[in-house]
Each structure stands twice: as C-alpha cells, then as structure tokens.
C-alpha cells in the first residue's frame, strides 16, 4: 500500500441541461486502497464515475490519473495520427490523380503532380483539423478505451454482459493487445494467434474458477443470474490487468452469500495491490470494505474519512435523512 493518490479529481463539473449533476467535486483515490463513494440518490456518484472513466465529457474541472490529465491520455496518439493522416492523404491523392487523368484528361506528368499535391493536402488537412480541434477551448476527447488501456477500468451499474456470447468468451474478450484482434494476424499468423488464444483461454478458465462460476463456462452470458453477471463483470475487468477498478454498485441485487464471496474477492485483490473505488448503497458492505469513504451530496464532496468517522458524522446523517 503506497498511499499515494492515483486518481485526483479537482473541481469536476457536469451538467445535463439545467441539472447540475456534479458540481465541483474534489477528492483523491489512494493507490492500493479501497475507496467507498456513497451518497443519497442523485448525489452524482455514477456521473462522477462516468467522468473519471472517460465515458462522459466534463464541463469543468480536471481528473488526473497516475499524474497525467485524462484529456492528455485520451488525445490521439502519434501512431494514430500517422494512420489517419496517411489514409486521408492517400484518398485525396488518389482521387486527385484519377480526376486529373480520367476527367480533366491531363497527361501523366501533371497527373503525378496533382496526386502529390492531393496527398499533401490530405495529410495537411488532417493534421490542421486535429490541431484546431485540440486547441478549441472547451474541447474534450471522449475515448474511454484509451483509459482502459492504461489500466483505469470500470464496471456498470446495470451489468452489461455480452448476452449472446458465453461466459468464457466474455472474459476472453478483455485482455489487451491480443495479436489475433488484428485481421492480418488472424489470417496470416495463425500459429502465433492460436498459441496466444490458448493462453488467454487458460487464464479465462482460471478466472471463472476463481469466481466459482466455472460451471457456467459455456453458458451464454444472457442466461446468467444478476449476481453471476456481477461476478462475470468483475472477472472481465480483472482480465485486463488493471491498476484501478471503478465498481458501480457491485453487490446490488446479489444475494447475501454471494455478496460475502464478492467482498472476500475484492479484499484479497486489494491485498494483491489493486486499487478500488466502489459506489454502493449497501452500508454494511461499504463500511466493512472501505479504507476511506467519500460522501457526496448534491454533486459535491460532503465529507471524507474512515468508516467509523463517517458512521457518526452529523452532516452525513442529515444528508441521508434529508434534514437541512
């Protein structure tokens, strides 16, 4: 447990029309700890989660993950720029060349010139557009998959299992950088892909065993019960080898025995060095699990502290009971 903050939220704001869902929330999530995020309905917990995980674009404030701003992480990388700039140049260049040769009836030398000019215009246009959009005030990138690649993952309040795919496939989807996800590798480097696939399958089978749902390995995820889906989702994010896991109501609708099991899992994962941030309405669970609890109300952080402090805090009791 290093205790350093890994996620820093500063003055985060998000509005939906006239409703201010998150209104200047400021807090930190410590690395290697379990942070509970609680608050009455409408306090802005899930919206905060969506902002931290990059699914929503903030209207103000910043989120820093591992010392870097989320916007910086989600910005297009250099290799992406090369691909898209190249594609843009190629397209406009080709169209220019065809136009010069076929339509305008120019000779081959001017056609080559037009093609080159078109290619340059394509690349330049793409880069200029990128630069302009990135510099526009208030521009935000919404590319949450970039965060997941860097180890910041989340689960969903209403489980989002891939219903037509089996439990095993749900897990096998998650690992990053699988060679077989590239079509060219899937066709031309099948041996390597098969080897990797066997390793991924083994890991997924182990994960199912760990979550004690191995009897559902080949069951379509849509047939799983609510609690089993929660487990499957947890397993799926764990397959990513993340650093920070944002769990949105992990035990909602889960029976007590399974809740107990899930809590044990989360505890043991914490001791393995994973960082958790948990939104949960079940007070028993959150009090038992969390190292630190952050209470939100009306889009702001109300109090922060150890479970015992929160239990006795008058402001928290007032917020929950609605006493002004």
């Amino acid at each position, binding site marked *: 447990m290093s205790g350093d903050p890994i996620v820093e939220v500063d003055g985060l704001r998000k509005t939906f029309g006239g409703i201010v869902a998150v209104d200047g929330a400021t807090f930190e999530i410590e690395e290697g700890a379990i942070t509970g995020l609680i608050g009455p309905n409408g306090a802005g917990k899930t919206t905060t989660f969506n902002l931290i*995980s990059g*699914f929503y674009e903030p209207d103000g404030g910043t989120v820093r993950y591992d010392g870097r701003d989320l916007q910086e992480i989600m910005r297009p990388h250099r290799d992406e720029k090369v691909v898209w700039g190249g594609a843009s140049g190629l*397209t406009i260049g080709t169209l220019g060349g065809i136009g010069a040769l*076929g*339509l305008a009836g120019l000779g081959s030398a001017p056609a080559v010139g037009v093609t080159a000019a078109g290619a340059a215009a394509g690349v330049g246009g793409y880069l200029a557009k990128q630069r302009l959009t990135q510099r526009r005030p208030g521009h935000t990138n919404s*590319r*949450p*998959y*970039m*965060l*997941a*690649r860097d180890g910041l*993952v*989340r*689960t*969903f309040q209403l489980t*989002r*299992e*891939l*219903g*037509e*795919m*089996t439990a*095993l*496939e749900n897990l*096998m*989807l*998650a690992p*990053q950088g*699988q*060679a*077989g*996800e*590239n*079509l060219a*590798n*899937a*066709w031309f480097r*099948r041996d390597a*892909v098969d080897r990797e*696939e066997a390793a*991924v*399958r083994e890991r997924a089978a182990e994960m199912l065993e760990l979550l004690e749902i191995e009897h559902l*390995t*080949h069951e379509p995820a849509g047939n799983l019960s609510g609690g089993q889906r929660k487990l499957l989702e947890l397993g*799926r*994010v764990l397959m*990513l080898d993340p650093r920070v896991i944002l769990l949105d109501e992990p035990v909602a609708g889960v029976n007590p025995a399974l809740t107990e099991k899930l809590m044990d899992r989360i505890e043991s994962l914490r001791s393995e060095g994973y960082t958790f941030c948990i939104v949960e309405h079940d007070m028993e669970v959150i009090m038992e699990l969390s190292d630190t609890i952050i209470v939100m109300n009306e889009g702001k952080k109300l109090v922060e502290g150890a479970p015992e402090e929160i239990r006795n805090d008058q402001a928290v009791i007032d917020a929950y009971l609605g006493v002004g």
Partner: protein
Amino acid sequence: MAASDVVISFMILVSIYGILALGLNVKYGHTGLLDFGHVGFYLIGAYTAALFVLAPDDPTDFTTYVIGLGELPVIGTWGTAILAATLLAGVIGGLVALPTIRLREDYLAITILGVSVIFQRVIQSETWLANGPDALRGYSPPLQSLFPLAIDTVVGPLLVGLIFGVVWAVATATLGQFRDADSRLPLGGVYGVTTFGLSRLHRRDGGLGSVSAVGTLAGAIAGVASAALLSVLGTLLALGALVSLYTWFVAVVAVARRYGDLGRPEWGVGVALGTGLLVSLLPLPVLGSVGLKSALTLGLLGTLVAAYYYGVTRVEWLADVKLTVVAVGALWFVSLWYFVLPTLGPLGDGDVGGALNVLAQNVVWVLGFGSDTGITYAVALIGDLTVQVDYSRFQLVGFVLFLVGLYYVLELAVRSPFGRVLRAIRNDETVVKSLGKDPFVYKVQTMVLGSALGGFAGALWAMYAQGLTFTTFAPRITFITLLIMFLGGVGNNKGMILGAGIFWAFQQATTQLASFFPPAVRVNIQAFRLVVVGILFLVVLYYVPEGLLGREDNSPSEVDG
C-alpha cells in the same frame, strides 16, 4: 435445356449471391451494422471490373465510357479486374463508413441506402462514365474463346483436367469432413480410394494432414490424371461419368448423414409433401385452359399448405420436425424433377433408349450434351451421346472455387479474436469501449471487408452477365440479400449459401412454372413473384427469426479438442 444445365446456371447465381450475402453478413450478422446500401458496393465492383476488361473506348460507336484497360497486358485481365473491383469497393466502403458509422443502426442503414442510390444515379446520368442509362457491353468472360474445348489440342485436356480436378477436390474434401465428423458411416474405404491413398496423411494434425489439404492434393492428382488420360485416350465421356458419379455418391452420403436418422413416419411425410407438390403442379403442362389450370394448381397447392399447417400445429411429433420434413420433401421433389420427369416424355412414346439418354445427360452433369461440336460416343442401349465441356461448367467451377475460398477466409476471420470483438460490438459497444478497444476501428474494418466482398460478387456478376445496366443495381438487390441472410441465419456463413440456394431455387422454379403460361400471363407471374418474395421475407422474420440454420456457435468450446 437439360435439367443439368438449369442446375448449372442456378449454381452460378448461388455462388454470386452467396458471396454478396457473405459480405452483408460480415456487416450485419457479425458486427451488427445494418447496411441497406450493400448493392452500392456490388455496383462498384461490377462496373470497375467491366472497365478493366473493356477495350479502350471507340469514339465512333454508340457506347462511351471513361476508360477501358482491356488491351493492356496483365492490367486488362480478369484477375486484375476482380482484384481491383474488390479493393475499390472495399476502399469506398471504408470511405462511406468514416462519416456514417457513428450513426445508430437504423439511421446508418438509411444513410447507406441513400449512398447506394447515389451510385446508381451517377451511373445512370453520367453518360461519359459507363455508357449512362444504356447497357455497358463489349467484353467477354475469360478464356471463352477456347470453348467448346477441342480435346486434340494441348489446352483442351488441361482445362478439362482443371475442371475435373476442382470438382474432385471439393467432393473429396466434403467426403473427408463427413468421414471425420461421423465415424458410423463406412466411408474409410471409399475415401482411401478417392484420395489415392493420401487419406493416410490424416493421422497428423494440421498442415498437410488437414481435410482441405488432402482434398486439394487428391483433386490435383485427379486433374493431372484426367488431363493425361484425355490427351492419350480421349475418353471424355468415361471420365466425366466417373467424376459425376463420385459427386452423386458424396451427395447421397450427405443426405444419408443429415436425414438418415429420421424415422419412417418423418420420411413418409416428407416424401408425401414432395409428391404432393409435384401432383399439384401436374395440371400446368396437362391442361390447356389458363383459368382452369391455374385454379386447379392453386387449389391443390392451398390444400397441401393447409394439410401441412394442420399437421405441424396438431400433431406433436410432426411439430418437432416441421422444417426437416419440408427439407426432405424438397429433396424428394427435386430428385423427381431432375431424374424422373425428363424421362417421362420419351417413355410415353415408348422410347426407352431416349429416356436412358436423357437420364444419362442429367447424371453426367459435368459434361454438356446435345451440341454438334462435341465428341460423339455410341453407347449400348442409349445410343449416340455427343459430349463437350462447355463454358458454363468451366465458369461454375471457378465461381464455386471463389465461394469456397472466400467462405474459408471469412470463417478464419470470424473465429479469430477479431471475430470475437465484432460479436462483442454487436452485443454491446459500450462494453468494448470499457475494455480498451476502439469500436470505430473495427466497424470501419468490417465495412471495408463486407463491401469488398460485395465488390467481388459484383465483378463475378459482370463476368456472368456480360453486360451491365444501371437498373440491375436497384435497392431491390440489397433486400434480396437481406432475405437471403435472414433465411439462412444471421451471423452464420454457411447459412448465406443455403439462403442463396433457396432464393434462386425459388426464382428458377417460378421461371419454369411461368413457361407453362402464355406470354401475357407469364409477365404477370414474373412481376408477381417479387410480391411472393416479400411475403416470404415476412414469413421468415415471423416464424423463423433466427433463420434456418440459426446463429452459429463460434464459442471456443467447439474448437478445443
């Protein structure tokens, strides 16, 4: 036309539409991108291929087109043309996808429908581009000038060897799969003979030992052997008969494998259905009056459908096999139509030799009969048979090869981790994002792949039709492809081939039926069948929404040994 010629042209169309449907299936079936403008990429493929093989535009005639590369070496050949058609359709599919793919599925569908109509209108109105509203003609399919094949040259036996070799390879690979999948059938001996002993390689895994590799090798041997035998002995009829009988054997094994487990009652119902269909169609050739024969036929058909409906809704054991008995009935009906009906005419005249002659023509389907250019053999009991290898059989072999190859390539793609991401996108895009994968990139790749397949099918259509008109590429084609997809089973590549088969069987059947009517009525029947296709679409969506084969199980449980 002999029944075998009808089947040949049917199978050519099935391969074209099968490839077209495979493309749409990548988009909708695997990734969930609803594309109502698939025909646009088919159009691009067809016109691109045609412009590659056309000779440069002659300003003095009545056709104008922008460019004709046909006289250039390599570039102006069909190989390049198909490749270019595929690539260009893929690239344009990708370009269309870039701005539109962010739309939700029904909006995406309508947008691409619009794009495909734009393509069609451009072809129609831009007269300089591809002869505008008039047909673009003046090119011929590859190697057509060599046909009918002369056996006494060098090229003739080689091409025949190629055709027979491919047929042999496909049949052998199919047989090999049956043998592997089903150890109850005693196929080991036959398989050992038809693979020329290569079946022993099977003991090893993958590589040379795979079923497809053994089949290919056996086909190569068969091809070389028949080319050699032909040039030395000239026994075209005997070789053709051997190859044809082998394919019939494989077909019988396929039927036995699929329906061999059915009990007698099920077979009985199936045969009764098939015979009933035949009986209800009998008034067509027999009766003279149009009103009488259509009334009688429709009445009998209605009775048959009602009896079937009554059976599957009231009889419990029949309800479980309601699709199977229809399949058995269809098989029975097709067998009667193919083998028995053509012999009835000569038999009625008491001409047994003639009947056998017709039967032989249909059995030996790899050879064309009845032209005056072929080689004539005198066969005991049957009489003279004039045989040749005609162009449509050559074309069919090529098209089937393309279909099988593309099917294989696509299966590789959808069974890989790439295919898994596609299925995940169809299920829930947000999950894919939350797991660190960019759905946009995959959706664009899907559009490129599916559209490229559409372009490939278009190039084959250009080759088959030998002339292109913009009216062919109406949105109708997209909806026919959608019907094929839903009929066969969304997300099931095998289903695309089955769906294309059923659709074109329906088209061919109605064409044949229409020929029993006077021309004025015939036109109405041809128009009316589009209505029937629409109703068929509704029935499929309502009663078998998952399609005949259902969604294929691509889960890894199948793969691991």
